[in-house]
């Protein structure tokens, strides 16, 4: 570390400039056509992004009321300022907002801690289980906390609950369906194929409609379950089919020799799956299942159609405030920004895992 500073700084600037010029020559101005194209694009980018930047930051109204916003020519960031709590937390009682906030902070901290594959252990699973219990108590009340009904959950916590709970619960269902699809037993196989193809062939909206209008008909008289739970069930049904296909991809990637070796050892089907096949297959499917999770996070926005208050619904609802009409673009951009941060970082993470796991496989091949 020390010797980095002993290097002469002047000596390094020159090659750096030169390297930059070289890089530009290679990547922007390699041929006449490329030069024209690059200059044209730079001009175009400046022409498009200067007004957007001016509107969003320089001319923007940062604080004040709606009247101040209407006078200014830029974006109304005061609107975001005003509606921030509602957009993020929805109709959750104002004085209790520290509870979902704490839950989310804990969750992000735990996610951050869990992101290194080297930390994956049974202990971590226990931590997560503990978090789920704690999060449940924090969100819905109990142990001295005032009870809050799930109908007033909303905003980002609701989006996260619907998608993450959906992903985790659908995981075992997905595994079961994938194993069923590869099974030798014709009845079980056909049931699984029908389920997977049926669900994957229809839009998620139709499942959400089913949850809101058909589930109540399925239940015996007098029994009713709340809307959130019904939507969650529909989401789980939906993701399970997609998870099954992801897991099937992992199972297909396991070489036949593994099955034969397990047979030779005298392991039965469940032992083969539990100790030989699934541990390998599930590792392969972690990156693609993160991608499924991204898809789900985005798809939970559809619950707006059955009137649940997820992040998109709270954004849309706050646009309807008669005092603050006319700032939809700002509102949607803010919500898009949150979704983007979440999905983009998850996507980056999936790609990193893919590279890391791939490297692991390569090394092993070399060692053998």
């Amino acid at each position, binding site marked *: 570390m020390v010797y980095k500073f002993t290097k002469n700084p002047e000596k390094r600037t020159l090659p750096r400039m030169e390297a930059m010029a070289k890089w530009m020559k290679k990547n*922007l101005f390699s041929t006449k056509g490329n030069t024209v194209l690059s200059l044209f694009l730079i001009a175009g980018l400046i022409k498009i992004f200067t007004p957007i930047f001016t509107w969003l930051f320089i001319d923007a109204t940062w604080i004040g009321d709606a009247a101040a916003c209407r006078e200014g020519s830029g974006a109304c960031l005061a609107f975001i300022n005003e509606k921030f709590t509602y957009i993020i937390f929805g109709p959750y009682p104002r004085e209790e907002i520290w509870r979902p906030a704490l839950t989310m902070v804990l969750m992000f901290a735990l996610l951050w801690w869990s992101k290194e594959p080297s930390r994956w252990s049974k202990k971590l699973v226990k931590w997560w289980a503990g978090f789920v219990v704690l999060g449940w108590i924090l969100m819905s009340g109990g142990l001295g906390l005032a009870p809050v009904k799930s109908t007033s959950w909303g905003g980002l916590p609701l989006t996260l609950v619907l998608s993450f709970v959906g992903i985790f619960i659908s995981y075992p269902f997905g595994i079961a369906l994938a194993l069923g699809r590869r099974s030798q037993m014709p009845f079980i196989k056909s049931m699984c194929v029908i389920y997977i193809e049926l669900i994957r062939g*229809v839009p998620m909206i139709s499942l959400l409609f089913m949850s809101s209008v058909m589930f109540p008909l399925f239940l015996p008289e007098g029994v009713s379950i709340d809307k959130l739970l019904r939507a969650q069930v529909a989401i789980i049904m939906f993701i399970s089919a997609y998870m099954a296909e992801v897991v099937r991809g992992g199972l297909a990637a396991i070489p036949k020799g593994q099955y034969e070796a397990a047979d030779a050892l005298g392991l039965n089907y469940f032992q083969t799956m539990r100790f030989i096949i699934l541990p390998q297959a599930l590792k392969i499917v972690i990156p693609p299942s993160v991608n499924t999770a991204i898809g789900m996070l985005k798809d939970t926005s559809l619950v*707006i159609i059955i009137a649940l208050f997820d992040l998109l619904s709270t954004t849309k609802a706050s646009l309807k405030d008669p005092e603050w009409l006319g700032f939809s673009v700002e509102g949607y951009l803010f919500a*898009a920004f949150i979704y*983007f941060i979440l*999905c983009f970082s998850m996507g980056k993470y999936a790609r990193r895992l893919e590279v890391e796991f791939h490297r692991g496989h390569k090394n092993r091949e070399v060692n053998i």
Partner: protein
Amino acid sequence: MEERTPFWQDPKKRSLVYQGLTLAIVGGMGYYLFKNTQANLTKQNIASGFGFLSQEAGFDISESVIEYFSDETYGKALKVGFLNTLKVSVVGNVFAVLLGGIVGILSISSNWLVSRISRGYVEMVRNVPLLLQLFFWYTLFSEIFPSVRQAYNPIAGVFVSNRGVVIPAFESHPVWTWVLLTILGTVVVIVPLIFSWGKKQKEEFGIERPTEWIMAAALIFLPIIVWMIGGMPSKFEIPSLQGFNFKGGFTLSPEYISLLLGLVLYTGAFIAEIVRAGILSVNKGQWEASEALGLSGWRTLTLVIIPQALRVIIPPLTSQLLNLTKNSSLAVAIAYPDFVSVANTSLNQTGQAIEMVGLIMLVYLTFSLTTSFAMNWYNKKIKLTER
């Protein structure tokens, strides 16, 4: 004497037992749900069945391909919704493939700016929920764009206002429907016929027929012949502002444009990713070999790389086309009267929940199955034939 194996150690019998158990569980659950549903329906006085389809719908539909009045039946209303879904998904799929193909190729450009801009578009669009994007485009029309009198006029003859986009078009005439049908028929029937004829000629007689040219000729001339038989209507209308609305031209409603724009941009980003991955999957030696043969960059791409990349591209592309079709059901959120939207209105009016949800699922399943059937057929055609 043969040793008797107990039945739990005989894989065949064991498998029968497992399947019997599954059947019992699935059947029992199905029966339980059916019983509950029946009891609930009798209590609510809802008659099941599709009889309601011939009742009067009584609601208006804002846009329609065929003529529709509110005093017509639910069946007709659903047909209108179905055609609207078809209208947005067919047009959307065509544009999404074009956009995705172009952006996918651009994103491997040697020009850093070009590839960065393409990647930037892909990352930006695919990390934000489609529904949010639809709301955003729709809000541009309802909140930002001016009224008809101050409409933007970006290109001569095209007007953008809060009532949608008006474009120049041929004056409506029944012949245009026939021309469209001819194009569709050529693609579905005549092109495959030419394809198999050319293949047969090549296999049996070793003659290479210019099938591509014949296909192109059929696609161009058959519609023209139909158009000529129909009396060659050629009156072209350029929209102009008259009073409080535009006269002439073809109006695309804000709902339709927003939905189309959202679907095309969103799916285009995913297709671009698929195309990029497909092109990158082609061995580097193929690029070098065609360079050694003296092929230009464009010819390398179209003659060597893309034909090989297509094998990797087609299967995931199929699922993207299906995704666009399924996602067109989000129309219900911005009030474009697609099938789901009309079905939802009918559901709310009649209370026929099971029938309506069943119909929605049936329609999309049909789309899915036909698309995957067609794509599988195409994929088989271009499959690598090894020695």
